[in-house]
Protein backbone atom coordinates (compact mmCIF):
# COMPACT_ATOMS: atom_id res chain seq x y z
CA UNK A 1 0.00 0.00 0.00
CA UNK A 2 2.55 2.59 1.17
CA UNK A 3 6.23 2.47 0.38
CA UNK A 4 8.60 5.10 1.73
CA UNK A 5 12.20 4.93 0.48
CA UNK A 6 15.11 7.00 1.86
CA UNK A 7 12.76 9.87 2.69
CA UNK A 8 14.32 13.12 3.92
CA UNK A 9 12.41 16.34 4.44
CA UNK A 10 14.23 19.61 5.06
CA UNK A 11 12.19 22.71 5.87
CA UNK A 12 13.84 26.15 6.12
CA UNK A 13 17.26 24.49 6.30
CA UNK A 14 16.27 22.22 9.18
CA UNK A 15 16.16 18.45 8.80
CA UNK A 16 12.72 17.37 10.01
CA UNK A 17 12.75 13.80 8.71
CA UNK A 18 15.94 11.94 7.88
CA UNK A 19 16.36 8.90 5.73
CA UNK A 20 13.20 6.98 6.52
CA UNK A 21 12.34 3.62 5.01
CA UNK A 22 8.95 2.15 5.70
CA UNK A 23 6.41 -0.23 4.18
CA UNK A 24 2.79 -0.31 5.22
CA UNK A 25 0.61 -3.17 4.03
CA UNK A 26 -3.02 -2.99 2.91
CA UNK A 27 -5.48 -3.10 5.81
CA UNK A 28 -2.97 -2.33 8.56
CA UNK A 29 -3.48 0.14 11.38
CA UNK A 30 -0.23 1.94 12.04
CA UNK A 31 0.45 4.45 14.80
CA UNK A 32 3.20 7.01 14.35
CA UNK A 33 4.50 7.98 17.78
CA UNK A 34 7.30 10.17 19.03
CA UNK A 35 8.05 13.41 20.82
CA UNK A 36 6.77 16.85 19.76
CA UNK A 37 8.77 18.20 16.84
CA UNK A 38 9.86 14.68 15.91
CA UNK A 39 8.42 14.95 12.38
CA UNK A 40 5.14 13.03 12.81
CA UNK A 41 2.88 15.66 11.23
CA UNK A 42 5.50 16.37 8.55
CA UNK A 43 5.44 12.69 7.60
CA UNK A 44 1.64 12.74 7.40
CA UNK A 45 1.71 15.90 5.26
CA UNK A 46 4.28 14.30 2.97
CA UNK A 47 1.99 11.29 2.58
CA UNK A 48 -0.82 13.68 1.67
CA UNK A 49 1.31 15.50 -0.90
CA UNK A 50 1.30 18.82 1.00
CA UNK A 51 5.08 18.62 1.46
CA UNK A 52 7.48 17.59 -1.30
CA UNK A 53 10.32 15.33 -0.14
CA UNK A 54 13.80 16.88 -0.21
CA UNK A 55 15.07 13.46 -1.22
CA UNK A 56 13.69 9.96 -1.39
CA UNK A 57 10.30 8.83 -2.63
CA UNK A 58 6.85 8.01 -1.34
CA UNK A 59 4.57 5.65 -3.24
CA UNK A 60 0.97 4.90 -2.39
CA UNK A 61 -0.32 2.00 -4.47
CA UNK A 62 2.58 2.65 -6.83
CA UNK A 63 1.73 6.32 -7.35
CA UNK A 64 3.13 9.51 -5.87
CA UNK A 65 0.90 11.00 -3.13
CA UNK A 66 -0.61 13.76 -5.32
CA UNK A 67 -1.38 11.24 -8.05
CA UNK A 68 -2.93 8.84 -5.56
CA UNK A 69 -5.13 11.53 -3.99
CA UNK A 70 -6.27 12.66 -7.45
CA UNK A 71 -7.32 9.18 -8.49
CA UNK A 72 -8.25 7.48 -5.24
CA UNK A 73 -10.00 8.60 -2.12
CA UNK A 74 -8.17 9.42 1.06
CA UNK A 75 -9.93 10.10 4.34
CA UNK A 76 -8.05 12.71 6.31
CA UNK A 77 -8.62 13.96 9.83
CA UNK A 78 -6.33 16.90 10.66
CA UNK A 79 -4.92 17.77 14.06
CA UNK A 80 -7.50 20.08 15.55
CA UNK A 81 -8.88 20.34 19.03
CA UNK A 82 -12.09 21.98 17.86
CA UNK A 83 -13.62 23.91 14.98
CA UNK A 84 -14.99 27.46 14.91
CA UNK A 85 -17.94 27.51 17.28
CA UNK A 86 -20.02 29.65 14.97
CA UNK A 87 -19.16 28.11 11.62
CA UNK A 88 -22.62 28.08 9.97
CA UNK A 89 -22.98 24.42 8.98
CA UNK A 90 -24.85 21.46 10.44
CA UNK A 91 -23.27 18.12 11.32
CA UNK A 92 -24.97 16.65 8.23
CA UNK A 93 -23.46 19.37 6.00
CA UNK A 94 -20.01 18.42 7.27
CA UNK A 95 -20.55 14.74 6.49
CA UNK A 96 -21.85 15.69 3.04
CA UNK A 97 -18.64 17.65 2.39
CA UNK A 98 -17.07 14.21 2.00
CA UNK A 99 -19.22 13.68 -1.12
CA UNK A 100 -18.37 17.06 -2.64
CA UNK A 101 -17.03 15.61 -5.90
CA UNK A 102 -19.57 12.80 -6.24
CA UNK A 103 -21.95 13.25 -9.13
CA UNK A 104 -25.03 11.81 -7.44
CA UNK A 105 -28.41 13.45 -6.68
CA UNK A 106 -28.66 15.51 -3.51
CA UNK A 107 -31.30 13.21 -2.03
CA UNK A 108 -28.91 10.28 -2.37
CA UNK A 109 -26.13 12.30 -0.73
CA UNK A 110 -28.40 13.10 2.20
CA UNK A 111 -29.43 9.47 2.59
CA UNK A 112 -25.81 8.32 2.51
CA UNK A 113 -24.74 11.00 4.99
CA UNK A 114 -27.54 9.93 7.37
CA UNK A 115 -26.28 6.35 7.17
CA UNK A 116 -22.77 7.41 8.11
CA UNK A 117 -24.02 9.60 10.94
CA UNK A 118 -25.69 6.48 12.29
CA UNK A 119 -22.57 4.41 11.73
CA UNK A 120 -20.50 6.76 13.89
CA UNK A 121 -23.17 6.88 16.58
CA UNK A 122 -24.29 10.42 15.84
CA UNK A 123 -27.85 9.67 14.77
CA UNK A 124 -30.17 12.46 15.85
CA UNK A 125 -27.49 15.16 15.58
CA UNK A 126 -27.86 15.66 11.81
CA UNK A 127 -29.34 19.14 12.02
CA UNK A 128 -27.34 20.27 15.02
CA UNK A 129 -24.79 23.13 14.56
CA UNK A 130 -21.45 21.39 14.05
CA UNK A 131 -19.49 24.00 15.99
CA UNK A 132 -21.55 23.41 19.11
CA UNK A 133 -20.87 19.68 19.32
CA UNK A 134 -18.31 18.45 21.86
CA UNK A 135 -14.76 17.63 20.72
CA UNK A 136 -15.50 13.89 20.66
CA UNK A 137 -18.74 14.37 18.73
CA UNK A 138 -16.99 16.61 16.21
CA UNK A 139 -14.34 13.92 15.73
CA UNK A 140 -17.03 11.33 15.02
CA UNK A 141 -18.70 13.59 12.48
CA UNK A 142 -15.33 14.29 10.87
CA UNK A 143 -14.67 10.56 10.72
CA UNK A 144 -18.05 10.04 9.04
CA UNK A 145 -17.04 12.76 6.55
CA UNK A 146 -13.73 11.01 5.95
CA UNK A 147 -15.37 7.58 5.52
CA UNK A 148 -18.34 8.50 3.38
CA UNK A 149 -16.27 8.64 0.20
CA UNK A 150 -15.22 5.03 0.98
CA UNK A 151 -11.48 5.71 1.05
CA UNK A 152 -8.80 3.05 0.82
CA UNK A 153 -6.62 5.01 3.19
CA UNK A 154 -7.50 6.87 6.36
CA UNK A 155 -4.94 9.30 7.77
CA UNK A 156 -5.52 10.71 11.24
CA UNK A 157 -3.35 13.36 12.87
CA UNK A 158 -3.71 13.25 16.66
CA UNK A 159 -7.31 12.03 16.52
CA UNK A 160 -7.67 12.01 20.30
CA UNK A 161 -6.90 15.73 20.75
CA UNK A 162 -9.62 17.37 22.81
CA UNK A 163 -11.30 14.10 23.76
CA UNK A 164 -11.45 12.75 27.32
CA UNK A 165 -9.86 9.38 28.19
CA UNK A 166 -13.06 7.31 28.02
CA UNK A 167 -14.08 8.85 24.71
CA UNK A 168 -10.54 8.23 23.42
CA UNK A 169 -10.75 4.51 24.10
CA UNK A 170 -14.21 4.35 22.50
CA UNK A 171 -12.78 6.18 19.54
CA UNK A 172 -9.91 3.71 19.08
CA UNK A 173 -12.33 0.78 19.44
CA UNK A 174 -14.39 2.40 16.75
CA UNK A 175 -11.34 2.74 14.48
CA UNK A 176 -10.57 -0.92 14.98
CA UNK A 177 -14.15 -1.75 13.96
CA UNK A 178 -13.89 0.37 10.80
CA UNK A 179 -10.64 -1.36 9.93
CA UNK A 180 -12.15 -4.80 10.47
CA UNK A 181 -15.44 -3.99 8.70
CA UNK A 182 -13.99 -2.31 5.65
CA UNK A 183 -10.35 -3.31 5.46
CA UNK A 184 -9.25 0.34 5.33
CA UNK A 185 -5.58 1.06 5.92
CA UNK A 186 -5.31 3.48 8.85
CA UNK A 187 -2.32 5.64 9.70
CA UNK A 188 -2.54 7.78 12.78
CA UNK A 189 -0.27 10.10 14.66
CA UNK A 190 -0.56 9.80 18.41
CA UNK A 191 1.01 10.90 21.67
CA UNK A 192 -0.62 8.13 23.65
CA UNK A 193 1.75 5.25 22.97
CA UNK A 194 0.32 3.28 25.86
CA UNK A 195 -3.25 3.62 24.66
CA UNK A 196 -2.89 3.18 20.91
CA UNK A 197 -0.68 0.11 21.31
CA UNK A 198 -3.80 -1.93 22.08
CA UNK A 199 -5.50 -1.05 18.85
CA UNK A 200 -2.82 -1.00 16.15
CA UNK A 201 -0.99 -3.63 14.14
CA UNK A 202 2.25 -1.70 13.99
CA UNK A 203 3.97 1.22 15.67
CA UNK A 204 6.41 3.60 13.98
CA UNK A 205 8.66 5.41 16.49
CA UNK A 206 9.74 8.67 14.87
CA UNK A 207 12.09 11.31 16.17
CA UNK A 208 13.61 12.77 13.03
CA UNK A 209 14.80 9.24 12.22
CA UNK A 210 12.69 6.13 12.33
CA UNK A 211 13.83 4.43 15.55
CA UNK A 212 11.34 1.60 15.45
CA UNK A 213 8.85 0.02 13.12
CA UNK A 214 7.13 -3.19 14.13
CA UNK A 215 4.58 -4.81 16.40
CA UNK A 216 3.53 -2.95 19.54
CA UNK A 217 4.72 -5.71 21.91
CA UNK A 218 8.25 -5.43 20.49
CA UNK A 219 8.13 -1.67 20.84
CA UNK A 220 7.86 -1.98 24.62
CA UNK A 221 10.45 -4.72 24.91
CA UNK A 222 13.29 -2.78 23.32
CA UNK A 223 15.05 0.33 24.58
CA UNK A 224 13.47 2.26 21.74
CA UNK A 225 11.52 4.50 24.12
CA UNK A 226 14.73 5.90 25.51
CA UNK A 227 16.13 6.43 22.03
CA UNK A 228 12.91 8.03 20.93
CA UNK A 229 12.27 10.38 23.82
CA UNK A 230 15.91 10.91 24.79
CA UNK A 231 15.64 9.98 28.50
CA UNK A 232 14.24 7.36 30.87
CA UNK A 233 10.55 7.00 30.22
CA UNK A 234 7.88 5.61 32.53
CA UNK A 235 5.05 4.21 30.53
CA UNK A 236 1.53 3.54 31.70
CA UNK A 237 -0.16 0.91 29.58
CA UNK A 238 -3.93 0.63 29.63
CA UNK A 239 -4.69 -2.94 28.74
CA UNK A 240 -6.98 -5.68 30.01
CA UNK A 241 -4.13 -8.17 29.49
CA UNK A 242 -1.59 -6.08 31.38
CA UNK A 243 -0.55 -8.02 34.51
CA UNK A 244 1.55 -5.27 36.05
CA UNK A 245 -1.35 -2.82 35.83
CA UNK A 246 -3.12 -4.89 38.49
CA UNK A 247 -0.62 -3.67 41.08
CA UNK A 248 -2.18 -0.27 40.85
CA UNK A 249 -5.75 -1.49 41.10
CA UNK A 250 -7.63 -1.34 44.37
CA UNK A 251 -8.12 -4.85 45.86
CA UNK A 252 -11.90 -4.67 45.73
CA UNK A 253 -11.83 -3.81 42.08
CA UNK A 254 -9.46 -6.73 41.45
CA UNK A 255 -11.83 -9.06 43.27
CA UNK A 256 -14.66 -7.77 41.11
CA UNK A 257 -12.63 -8.55 38.00
CA UNK A 258 -11.77 -12.10 39.27
CA UNK A 259 -15.43 -12.90 39.87
Amino acid at each position, binding site marked *: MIEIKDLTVIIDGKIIIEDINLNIEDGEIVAIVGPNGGGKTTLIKTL*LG*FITPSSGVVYIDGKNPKGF*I*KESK*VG*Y*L*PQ*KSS*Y*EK*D*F*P*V*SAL*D*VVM*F*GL*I*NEKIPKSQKIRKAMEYMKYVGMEGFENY*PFGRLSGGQQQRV*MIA*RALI*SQPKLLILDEPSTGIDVVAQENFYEFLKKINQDRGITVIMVSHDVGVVANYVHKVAGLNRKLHFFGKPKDFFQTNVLNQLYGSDVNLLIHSPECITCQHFMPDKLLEGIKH
Partner: protein
Amino acid sequence: MNILELLTTDFILNAVIGGLILAILLSVLSLFIYVKKWSFINVGISHAAFGGLAIGYIAGISPSITGSIFAVIVGILIGFLSKRGKFHEDISIGILLSFSMALGVILISFSNNYNSDLFSFLFGNILTITREDITTLGIFTVIAFAFLYVYFKKLLYCCFDEEVAKVSGVKTDFLYYSLIVLMAIATVLSIKLVGSILASAMMILPAATSSQIFWHYRSIVVFSIIISIFTVVTGIFISFEFNLPSGSTIVMVYSVIFFVITAVKRFLK
Protein backbone atom coordinates in the same frame (compact mmCIF):
# COMPACT_ATOMS: atom_id res chain seq x y z
CA MET B 1 -41.83 64.38 -2.85
CA ASN B 2 -43.01 60.87 -1.92
CA ILE B 3 -41.18 57.60 -2.61
CA LEU B 4 -43.02 56.84 -5.86
CA GLU B 5 -42.38 60.33 -7.17
CA LEU B 6 -38.72 59.99 -6.25
CA LEU B 7 -38.50 56.77 -8.24
CA THR B 8 -39.56 58.62 -11.38
CA THR B 9 -36.40 60.68 -11.08
CA ASP B 10 -33.72 59.07 -13.23
CA PHE B 11 -30.77 59.38 -10.89
CA ILE B 12 -32.73 58.09 -7.90
CA LEU B 13 -34.03 55.17 -9.95
CA ASN B 14 -30.46 54.38 -11.07
CA ALA B 15 -29.27 54.62 -7.48
CA VAL B 16 -32.00 52.29 -6.24
CA ILE B 17 -31.48 49.72 -9.02
CA GLY B 18 -27.69 49.84 -8.61
CA GLY B 19 -28.04 49.71 -4.85
CA LEU B 20 -30.34 46.68 -4.98
CA ILE B 21 -28.06 44.71 -7.30
CA LEU B 22 -25.11 45.51 -5.05
CA ALA B 23 -27.05 44.66 -1.91
CA ILE B 24 -27.80 41.17 -3.22
CA LEU B 25 -24.29 40.54 -4.54
CA LEU B 26 -22.44 41.80 -1.46
CA SER B 27 -24.79 39.95 0.91
CA VAL B 28 -23.87 36.61 -0.61
CA LEU B 29 -20.15 37.44 -0.67
CA SER B 30 -20.36 38.61 2.94
CA LEU B 31 -21.03 35.03 4.06
CA PHE B 32 -17.55 34.01 2.95
CA ILE B 33 -15.90 37.07 4.47
CA TYR B 34 -17.68 36.24 7.72
CA VAL B 35 -16.69 32.57 7.82
CA LYS B 36 -13.13 33.21 6.62
CA LYS B 37 -12.78 36.10 9.09
CA TRP B 38 -11.56 38.16 6.17
CA SER B 39 -12.94 41.52 7.23
CA PHE B 40 -9.50 43.08 7.46
CA ILE B 41 -8.50 41.67 4.06
CA ASN B 42 -11.68 43.23 2.72
CA VAL B 43 -10.84 46.58 4.30
CA GLY B 44 -7.37 46.31 2.71
CA ILE B 45 -8.80 45.64 -0.73
CA SER B 46 -11.35 48.45 -0.55
CA HIS B 47 -8.69 50.97 0.43
CA ALA B 48 -6.36 49.62 -2.24
CA ALA B 49 -9.07 50.21 -4.82
CA PHE B 50 -8.81 53.91 -4.04
CA GLY B 51 -5.23 54.03 -5.39
CA GLY B 52 -6.37 52.29 -8.58
CA LEU B 53 -9.30 54.65 -9.09
CA ALA B 54 -6.99 57.62 -8.75
CA ILE B 55 -4.59 56.19 -11.38
CA GLY B 56 -7.44 55.86 -13.88
CA TYR B 57 -8.82 59.26 -13.03
CA ILE B 58 -5.52 61.02 -13.62
CA ALA B 59 -4.55 58.92 -16.67
CA GLY B 60 -7.93 59.52 -18.30
CA ILE B 61 -8.84 55.81 -18.31
CA SER B 62 -12.06 54.47 -16.78
CA PRO B 63 -11.42 54.52 -12.99
CA SER B 64 -13.57 51.37 -12.61
CA ILE B 65 -11.16 49.43 -14.83
CA THR B 66 -7.94 50.69 -13.19
CA GLY B 67 -9.54 50.39 -9.75
CA SER B 68 -10.55 46.79 -10.43
CA ILE B 69 -7.13 45.86 -11.78
CA PHE B 70 -5.36 47.52 -8.86
CA ALA B 71 -7.72 45.99 -6.29
CA VAL B 72 -7.37 42.52 -7.83
CA ILE B 73 -3.56 42.79 -7.83
CA VAL B 74 -3.46 44.01 -4.23
CA GLY B 75 -6.05 41.40 -3.20
CA ILE B 76 -4.05 38.56 -4.75
CA LEU B 77 -0.88 39.92 -3.16
CA ILE B 78 -2.54 40.06 0.28
CA GLY B 79 -3.92 36.57 -0.26
CA PHE B 80 -0.55 35.25 -1.35
CA LEU B 81 1.28 36.81 1.60
CA SER B 82 -1.33 35.53 4.06
CA LYS B 83 -1.23 32.05 2.58
CA ARG B 84 2.52 31.82 2.54
CA GLY B 85 2.59 33.04 6.12
CA LYS B 86 5.95 34.74 5.71
CA PHE B 87 4.47 38.04 6.82
CA HIS B 88 1.76 38.38 9.38
CA GLU B 89 -1.29 39.23 7.26
CA ASP B 90 -2.18 42.27 9.39
CA ILE B 91 1.22 43.77 8.60
CA SER B 92 1.03 43.09 4.87
CA ILE B 93 -2.51 44.48 4.67
CA GLY B 94 -1.55 47.52 6.76
CA ILE B 95 1.40 48.32 4.48
CA LEU B 96 -0.48 47.83 1.19
CA LEU B 97 -3.51 49.74 2.49
CA SER B 98 -1.44 52.75 3.52
CA PHE B 99 0.58 52.67 0.29
CA SER B 100 -2.54 52.61 -1.90
CA MET B 101 -4.29 55.35 0.05
CA ALA B 102 -1.20 57.58 -0.02
CA LEU B 103 -0.76 56.98 -3.76
CA GLY B 104 -4.41 57.79 -4.39
CA VAL B 105 -4.37 61.03 -2.40
CA ILE B 106 -1.14 62.21 -4.09
CA LEU B 107 -2.52 61.49 -7.57
CA ILE B 108 -5.86 63.15 -6.87
CA SER B 109 -4.05 66.23 -5.52
CA PHE B 110 -3.10 66.94 -9.17
CA SER B 111 -6.79 67.27 -10.02
CA ASN B 112 -8.47 70.68 -10.26
CA ASN B 113 -11.46 69.49 -8.23
CA TYR B 114 -9.28 67.97 -5.54
CA ASN B 115 -11.77 68.14 -2.67
CA SER B 116 -14.93 67.01 -4.42
CA ASP B 117 -13.18 64.20 -6.33
CA LEU B 118 -11.41 62.95 -3.24
CA PHE B 119 -14.64 63.06 -1.28
CA SER B 120 -16.63 61.13 -3.86
CA PHE B 121 -13.96 58.42 -4.15
CA LEU B 122 -13.69 58.08 -0.39
CA PHE B 123 -17.38 58.28 0.50
CA GLY B 124 -19.22 57.58 -2.75
CA ASN B 125 -21.66 59.64 -4.76
CA ILE B 126 -24.80 57.77 -5.50
CA LEU B 127 -26.04 60.45 -7.84
CA THR B 128 -23.26 59.57 -10.26
CA ILE B 129 -24.50 56.01 -10.86
CA THR B 130 -25.30 55.79 -14.57
CA ARG B 131 -27.14 53.27 -16.76
CA GLU B 132 -23.72 52.05 -17.96
CA ASP B 133 -22.69 51.44 -14.34
CA ILE B 134 -25.84 49.42 -13.80
CA THR B 135 -25.15 47.37 -16.93
CA THR B 136 -21.56 46.67 -15.79
CA LEU B 137 -22.80 45.79 -12.32
CA GLY B 138 -25.52 43.55 -13.75
CA ILE B 139 -23.10 41.66 -15.99
CA PHE B 140 -20.61 41.19 -13.15
CA THR B 141 -23.36 40.03 -10.80
CA VAL B 142 -24.55 37.42 -13.29
CA ILE B 143 -20.97 36.13 -13.69
CA ALA B 144 -20.41 36.16 -9.92
CA PHE B 145 -23.65 34.27 -9.25
CA ALA B 146 -22.88 31.72 -11.95
CA PHE B 147 -19.53 31.12 -10.26
CA LEU B 148 -21.10 30.94 -6.80
CA TYR B 149 -23.83 28.60 -8.05
CA VAL B 150 -21.22 26.15 -9.30
CA TYR B 151 -18.72 26.46 -6.46
CA PHE B 152 -20.77 27.51 -3.42
CA LYS B 153 -20.41 24.24 -1.46
CA LYS B 154 -16.77 23.86 -2.40
CA LEU B 155 -16.04 27.42 -1.26
CA LEU B 156 -17.78 26.69 2.01
CA TYR B 157 -15.78 23.47 2.40
CA CYS B 158 -12.53 25.40 1.81
CA CYS B 159 -13.55 27.97 4.41
CA PHE B 160 -14.39 25.17 6.84
CA ASP B 161 -11.04 23.39 6.48
CA GLU B 162 -8.81 24.08 3.52
CA GLU B 163 -6.45 21.12 4.04
CA VAL B 164 -9.26 18.60 4.35
CA ALA B 165 -10.99 20.07 1.29
CA LYS B 166 -7.76 19.74 -0.67
CA VAL B 167 -7.45 16.06 0.25
CA SER B 168 -11.07 15.63 -0.89
CA GLY B 169 -9.99 16.80 -4.34
CA VAL B 170 -11.20 20.41 -4.15
CA LYS B 171 -9.05 22.92 -6.08
CA THR B 172 -8.53 25.10 -3.05
CA ASP B 173 -5.99 27.56 -4.49
CA PHE B 174 -8.19 28.29 -7.49
CA LEU B 175 -11.20 28.93 -5.23
CA TYR B 176 -9.18 31.00 -2.73
CA TYR B 177 -7.91 33.42 -5.37
CA SER B 178 -11.21 33.44 -7.28
CA LEU B 179 -12.99 34.57 -4.12
CA ILE B 180 -10.44 37.34 -3.64
CA VAL B 181 -10.90 38.48 -7.26
CA LEU B 182 -14.70 38.51 -6.85
CA MET B 183 -14.36 40.48 -3.63
CA ALA B 184 -11.98 42.98 -5.22
CA ILE B 185 -14.16 43.68 -8.27
CA ALA B 186 -17.35 43.84 -6.17
CA THR B 187 -15.61 46.34 -3.91
CA VAL B 188 -14.65 48.62 -6.80
CA LEU B 189 -18.17 48.45 -8.22
CA SER B 190 -19.65 49.43 -4.86
CA ILE B 191 -17.45 52.50 -4.50
CA LYS B 192 -19.86 54.81 -6.32
CA LEU B 193 -22.55 53.77 -3.88
CA VAL B 194 -20.71 53.96 -0.58
CA GLY B 195 -17.10 54.98 -1.33
CA SER B 196 -13.88 53.11 -0.80
CA ILE B 197 -13.76 53.62 2.95
CA LEU B 198 -17.24 52.24 3.55
CA ALA B 199 -17.30 49.60 0.80
CA SER B 200 -15.95 46.95 3.13
CA ALA B 201 -18.81 47.62 5.57
CA MET B 202 -21.28 46.51 2.89
CA MET B 203 -19.52 43.16 2.75
CA ILE B 204 -18.97 42.68 6.47
CA LEU B 205 -22.23 43.84 8.02
CA PRO B 206 -24.79 41.63 6.22
CA ALA B 207 -23.54 38.23 7.41
CA ALA B 208 -22.31 39.64 10.73
CA THR B 209 -25.84 40.93 11.42
CA SER B 210 -27.68 37.84 10.17
CA SER B 211 -25.47 35.48 12.15
CA GLN B 212 -26.71 37.17 15.32
CA ILE B 213 -30.10 35.57 14.60
CA PHE B 214 -29.40 32.51 12.45
CA TRP B 215 -26.73 29.85 12.67
CA HIS B 216 -27.09 28.05 9.33
CA TYR B 217 -25.51 29.45 6.18
CA ARG B 218 -28.72 29.21 4.12
CA SER B 219 -30.70 31.33 6.57
CA ILE B 220 -27.76 33.72 6.94
CA VAL B 221 -27.60 34.32 3.17
CA VAL B 222 -31.37 34.78 2.81
CA PHE B 223 -31.63 37.14 5.77
CA SER B 224 -28.52 39.04 4.63
CA ILE B 225 -30.17 39.70 1.26
CA ILE B 226 -33.44 40.83 2.87
CA ILE B 227 -31.74 43.08 5.37
CA SER B 228 -29.40 44.55 2.73
CA ILE B 229 -32.26 45.39 0.37
CA PHE B 230 -34.11 47.07 3.22
CA THR B 231 -31.02 48.97 4.32
CA VAL B 232 -29.99 50.21 0.89
CA VAL B 233 -33.49 51.41 -0.04
CA THR B 234 -34.06 53.02 3.38
CA GLY B 235 -30.60 54.58 3.32
CA ILE B 236 -31.08 56.10 -0.13
CA PHE B 237 -34.43 57.65 0.80
CA ILE B 238 -33.26 58.95 4.17
CA SER B 239 -30.19 60.47 2.57
CA PHE B 240 -32.30 62.14 -0.11
CA GLU B 241 -34.95 63.32 2.35
CA PHE B 242 -32.52 64.81 4.82
CA ASN B 243 -29.80 65.77 2.35
CA LEU B 244 -27.21 63.41 3.87
CA PRO B 245 -24.34 61.58 2.15
CA SER B 246 -25.90 58.38 0.77
CA GLY B 247 -23.07 55.91 1.45
CA SER B 248 -22.63 56.99 5.03
CA THR B 249 -26.39 56.90 5.61
CA ILE B 250 -26.64 53.34 4.26
CA VAL B 251 -23.76 52.18 6.45
CA MET B 252 -25.27 54.03 9.42
CA VAL B 253 -28.65 52.28 8.94
CA TYR B 254 -26.80 48.97 8.70
CA SER B 255 -24.79 49.63 11.83
CA VAL B 256 -27.89 50.63 13.80
CA ILE B 257 -29.64 47.40 12.77
CA PHE B 258 -26.57 45.42 13.78
CA PHE B 259 -26.34 47.09 17.19
CA VAL B 260 -30.08 46.74 17.86
CA ILE B 261 -30.12 43.03 16.93
CA THR B 262 -26.99 42.35 18.99
CA ALA B 263 -28.39 44.22 21.99
CA VAL B 264 -31.77 42.46 21.78
CA LYS B 265 -30.05 39.10 21.48
CA ARG B 266 -27.94 39.78 24.58
CA PHE B 267 -30.97 41.05 26.46
CA LEU B 268 -32.96 37.91 25.62
CA LYS B 269 -30.17 35.56 26.75
